[in-house]
């Protein structure tokens, strides 16, 4: 078991390295750097000014050196300016004595995630805060989505082809066929605007960042959950319908077990084995879903940060977002594999 987890962690680190390198390469293309220089300085900079700004900030080193510096395996470089030293490991201009007193390495291995040019704050602080906000959102989404999807799926799948099945399947297909930017807009129009006169909820979730309530938080949660609900419910239904035709279900029926107990005691655990993987796959997918919903409801979480970082070529912030994403994806898959073993007694880790 330990070996298995260690190997998965190894894979995780390797994936993170590859992905961040790709992001690093793309964000460090010269046109992107030029754009960065101009947004940080001013838009009327000449090419020479841009080059000197970039040199001062350490952006003109070879790509691998810069990547090594970001990781913290290559010492940061310093540049002699007119009024002191500038460098990749500190902000602004400092004297030689001050620089000598600072550590030479400043990468993520040293715990330094860099500085966000967009928010003008340390990346680690931004990520922690935004991830926390998205975490709250995700928690409520999962709390709404998973149970309702499972109930829908089990109810539909236990009597395949029945009227309940068809009605519930229609609902599930509809919700999963509606993307968030459609369902979000529709929900806002119906429940939060004067268009229908039903001003039940807030159309924006900005206030939910400090104080989430049912009124300001339900709509974004529902918007994300709806899509996933349909998807998971379809999976659960298919799995449930298959299990209900299995021979051991017939055995249970001919043993005299009540229908309710057949569903709950005999079918459920077997039917959950397949959708479990799908549910766990929803976590990384939610990261993607929140991008739209957070922007739509103006909830400044992780997705919103990603959009901001990308549109401003905020190199350090984008890299940090990538690393976090890779870890979320692989961590959920690890949990999914371990959980699978517990659900399915035929597979063992030891």
């Amino acid at each position: 078991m330990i070996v298995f987890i260690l190997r998965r962690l190894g894979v995780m680190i390797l994936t993170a390295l590859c992905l961040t390198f790709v992001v690093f390469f793309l964000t460090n293309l010269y046109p992107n750097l030029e754009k960065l220089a101009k947004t940080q300085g001013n838009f009327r900079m000449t090419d020479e000014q841009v080059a000197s700004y970039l040199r001062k900030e350490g952006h003109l080193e070879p790509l691998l050196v810069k990547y090594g510096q970001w990781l913290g395996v290559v010492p940061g470089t310093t540049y002699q300016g007119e009024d002191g030293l500038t460098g990749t490991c500190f902000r602004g201009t400092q004297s030689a004595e001050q620089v000598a007193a600072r550590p030479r390495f400043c990468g993520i291995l040293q715990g330094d995630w860099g500085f966000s040019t967009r928010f003008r704050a340390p990346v680690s602080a931004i990520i922690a805060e935004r991830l926390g906000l998205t975490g709250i959102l995700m928690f409520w989404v999962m709390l709404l989505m998973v149970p309702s999807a499972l109930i829908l799926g089990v109810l539909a799948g236990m009597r395949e082809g029945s009227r309940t099945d068809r009605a519930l399947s229609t609902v599930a297909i509809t919700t999963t066929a509606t993307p968030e930017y459609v369902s979000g807009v529709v929900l806002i129009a119906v429940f939060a605007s004067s268009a229908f006169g039903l001003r039940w909820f807030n159309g924006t979730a900005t206030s939910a960042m400090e104080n989430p309530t049912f009124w300001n938080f339900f709509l974004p949660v529902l918007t994300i959950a709806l899509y996933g609900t349909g998807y998971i419910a379809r999976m659960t239904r298919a799995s449930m319908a298959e299990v209900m035709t299995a021979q051991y279900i017939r055995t249970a029926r001919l043993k005299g077990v009540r229908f309710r107990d057949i569903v709950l005691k005999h079918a459920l655990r077997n039917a959950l084995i397949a959708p479990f993987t799908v549910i766990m796959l929803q976590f990384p997918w939610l990261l993607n879903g929140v991008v739209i919903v957070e922007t739509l409801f103006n909830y400044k979480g992780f997705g919103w940060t990603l959009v901001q970082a990308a549109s401003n070529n905020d190199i350090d912030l984008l890299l940090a977002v990538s690393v976090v994403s890779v870890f979320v994806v692989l961590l959920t898959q690890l949990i999914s594999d371990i959980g699978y073993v517990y659900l399915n007694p035929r597979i063992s880790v030891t």
Partner: protein
Amino acid sequence: MSDPTYDGPILEIENLSISFFTRLREIPAVMDFSCVVQPGEAMGLVGESGCGKSTVALGVMQDLGVNGRITGGTIRYKGRDLNGLSQNELRKIRGSEIAMIYQEPMASLNPAMKVGKQLMEVPMIHQGVGTAAARKLALEMIEDVRMPDPERILNSYPHQLSGGQQQRIVIAMALMSRPSLLILDEPTTALDVTVEAGIVDLVKDLGRKYGTSMLFISHNLGLILDSCDRLCVMYSGEAVETGSITEVFDEMQHPYTQALFRSIPLPSADKNARPLVAIPGNFPFPHERPPGCNFGPRCDYFQAGRCDAQEVPMARVKGDDRHETRCLRFREIDWSTPPEPPIATEKARIGAPVIEVDALRKYYEVAANKLFGRGHKQLVKANETLTFDARESETLAIVGESGCGKSTFAKVLMGLETATAGKILYDNREIQDIPIQRRSTATVSDIQMVFQNPFDTLNPSMRVGRQIMRALEIFGIGTSEAERREKMLDLMDLVKLPREFADRMPRQLSGGQKQRVGIARAFAGGARIVVADEPVSALDVSVAAAVTDLLLEIQRNNRTTLLFIAHDLSIVRYLSDRVLVMYLGHVVELGTTAQVFAPPYHPYTEALLSAVPIADTSVRKKRILLEGDVPSAINPPSGCPFQTRCRWKSEVPGNLCETEVPPMRRLADGHQVKCHLSESCFGQMEPVIELAARPGSDGQ
């Protein structure tokens, strides 16, 4: 619930008709079926697949699914009509009064629930007992089905048990609340013969112990003979003959029953002197049944204008107790006429050795843990020092239970695997290390295979003729498409399929026809060696006989070496010249068919022979039950592989059996046995199967 004073029949089925309704039409599955099961009686239900025997069982259980419906007749259990009961009332009967044992034990146990819980459920539902009491009952029941270490069994999941153990659990579950009627739906089809013998004995003993009546469904007449008092033969949805075992087996009164007995390999059959008689034609589809007698078109005694003019009712056979037949002409037919004297063929002349196997070993390396991590490697010793030869025009049967390594040997011979050590000489060339991709076209087309399951081995989206032509193309036969097509049509003639079938899709063919295509494909390149891996075990008896005969005929004409892999000793005795018995990767006995089927035996052969059910009332068998399961090939026993289950072990002095693998000993010319037993012990062995002399000619 059940009336304790009731003393009538347990189950009475009267004129039962069951149909399945599809969008297109109503498909009658069972028509006008009647039978009575008395208390303590075991009733056998025999027939080929699709004859409706399982539908009857599910009809009794009132579990016909969404599409099935009882369209007529009554099913009375202890006098109560089951058709009229509500779901609630049915639930009280199911599991407590009527219980069922199924064909595939693995599939009928819940994979995600511990065995103990599944057993305890029964008394908890029906007797309303608590967990502790239910557990105690479950423990007792596990001991009743003769399983060691009940506590451990209760705490395991089904996949942790072997097939035989799983079936014992299913039996235990069925008997948990002492039902009055037990329905067994092909309970041993998925199991090995020695395991089957154990299960049949167990069911018989428990039935006697608890006075349970039984409805035993099987396609195997030998099993029915071993386990039932009465039987009912079904054909195409109807009961065609019913009566006591001795009456139906010895004085059959229906042409189908007679044809069925003539098509199974009984000990009296012989491939040259008395070949099997296949039933001509095919089983009719439920919606294409002929008018009048369903068996009419395939019947030797058919009279146009009479047999197809009217519905045939069941008629009582005079003088016999509850013996009925669905035949208009049963009084006119002379049932004692022997079958048409078959065209006896000459025994083929055995030629020079084609394949010589010398000390062949095949070990597989498996990681201890497949899914996660590498773990340490373990060796599966699938084949251990196989040494034998196979000659031109000879049929060599390789016999053994699942896991004995017979299929591994076939794979190595075919080149699907390469050997770990030892040699396979084909025409004095070593081929054991050449995988099939690197074998020459000639070698590949010379060594071919007929597979076990004809349903899976044909490409479902390619026309039959095209598949054979593809084989011809690969074997480099014919230069043009037209030439190959001509050759393909010749092959269709060879396997006795109509030429039009070349343009059909595999799904339009029946199982027997598909297997013929498989044979045509194997012989496309003029194969010299054909490995037939249980070629007829998936087919119904009447079809199996025809396919077997076809295989033998082609073999005789082409002087092919046939390696016939089987677990069914009846068919092996019928068709093979020599037999090789395998156990846990070892050849334990090798000899001519006569030598292997008569004492002295290897102790394993003896047990194997005694386990085979034989559908002949004149056969006297000695019951030798093997204890426990086949040991794992990963961790085989020390010394002799069979020592853990051998009943002769005490006859060998010291601990020789546990310490040394016995040498291959020659008992007679061409008869070898891998055993430590002394000559005198071998001399004492009695025959397992004896044919009691029957008065007059055998009356079939």
